[in-house]
């Protein structure tokens, strides 16, 4: 049990003493996972809206596919991206494998289905009359869509949080496409795995606690945004 306590002490020490390695690992974790979440939102929002609101053949199939995508194992995504980025793969010449960019690509692929599925679910539960009303009031389609997003802001921000939570905590893809290179692609999860395999349990726990802390900070800021406007107007 003292491992847990030492881990807590280590985490505080690493954060307070400004340990260079831990800070750069934490900064890279935030950079990779936030960028991947942002990309997933940019791609997932329009796609999710399309699946939710448009009528096209195969729509239910598409919904089932993105819902399956929510449960896609990061290792599988990682393997797929690795094979694509291999020197012998289709875009091998770019030399992207084992870089933060590769990690962002993989994590975006993990987060996008989550955003699509949750956005689709969020928009579908908005009262269908709402859109009719907007149109009746003479809103342009873009304004109507913006109003719809506003109406569904709670679940939409929940989608952002779910996406961020999924990518910041995954280790399989980060390890595979990033390679856990010290100072280059080492993030909190892969650092924790390495520390464990080296028998440095307190350090591993410390990384875990730092991960929890930054996840909490990100979610806290999102929650504040989410809840600020929910007071009745």
């Amino acid at each position, binding site marked *: 049990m003292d491992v847990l306590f030492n881990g807590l002490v280590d985490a505080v020490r690493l954060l307070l003493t400004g340990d260079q390695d831990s800070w750069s690992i934490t900064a890279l974790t935030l950079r990779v996972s936030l960028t991947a979440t*942002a990309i997933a939102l*940019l791609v997932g929002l329009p796609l999710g809206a399309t699946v939710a609101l448009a009528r096209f053949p195969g729509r239910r199939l598409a919904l089932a596919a993105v819902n399956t995508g929510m449960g896609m194992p990061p290792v599988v995504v990682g393997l797929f991206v690795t094979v694509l980025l291999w*020197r012998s793969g289709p875009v091998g010449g770019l030399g992207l494998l084992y870089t933060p960019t590769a990690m962002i690509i993989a994590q975006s692929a993990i987060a996008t289905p989550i955003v699509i599925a949750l956005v689709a679910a969020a928009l579908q539960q908005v009262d269908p009359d709402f859109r009719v009303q907007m149109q009746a009031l003479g809103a342009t389609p873009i304004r109507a869509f913006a109003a719809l997003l506003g109406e569904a802001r709670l679940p939409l921000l929940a989608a952002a949080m779910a996406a961020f939570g999924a990518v910041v905590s995954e280790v399989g893809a980060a390890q595979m496409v990033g390679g856990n290179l010290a100072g280059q692609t080492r993030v909190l999860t892969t650092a924790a795995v390495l520390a464990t*395999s*080296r*028998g440095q349990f307190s350090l591993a726990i410390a990384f875990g606690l730092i991960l929890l802390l930054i996840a909490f900070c990100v979610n806290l800021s*999102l929650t504040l945004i989410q809840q600020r406007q929910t007071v009745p107007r």
Partner: protein
Amino acid sequence: MRRTLTVVVAWVAAVVLTGCGTTASEPPAQKSLILATTTSTQDSGLLDELLPAFTRDSGWQVKTLAVGSGQAIELGRRGEADVLLVHSPAAETEFVAEGTAGARRLVMHNDFVLVGPKEDPADIKNANAAEALKKIAAAEAVFVSRGDESGTHAKEKGLWPKAGVTPGGSWYQSTGQGMGETLRVASEKAGYTLSDRATYLAQRGTLSLEVLSEGDPGLLNVYHVIEMTKKAGDLVQPDGAKAFADWIVAPPAQRLIGEFGRAKFGQPLFTPDAGKDESTLGQ
């Protein structure tokens, strides 16, 4: 409602800009090579000592993939790595014979040890490797195998026939993981396992395992550096491979290898061997 949207958009924009900003402020791309090596060189901490010195001396950044020797060789074969530092001699000679690899040079050695619980239920203390394995099998004491086609796993698989045993059954367990994890599993299950000495010594403090059988000439653990060539793939960098291989067999790196671990463990973890005749090792 507009404000919500503005806030969301601002947040997304901020994140995207932060991401781009950080990317842009990175140092300009340096020449970097990919080294595929074994978990033992990483888990023991040797690479942390060597690689910064290599980068300083040569200007090459190194991307290290610490995997089992089997996977390292496969990465070399596919042209995904520029240089290999591995310890699976039989597989290496076969691989070099295929013709895609360049020079293969001796770097260092240490040895494998059979470790197990202090109580030693199969009574293997001071037995040679073959006898020890025979006793473990006879006692059906838990033996934890790497099971990951690593150099250590290859060595272990080579030892069982010498003991006249085909391992199997519930006492023979396979983790499929690196040396550090496998030692941990063996420790928790009070089982035996084969480990390279370096990883064991580096982690001894957190394990309840002791060295029970050692010193058998069959337990030598020899590391070679293998340069890859363009024959393995168009993007292989033979110049980087040569820079690394030349550097690691040169006296300064060999001195670092010989000193590594002396301060912390009271004994060096590896013996530098560059330029020696392999058949004289361990004598």
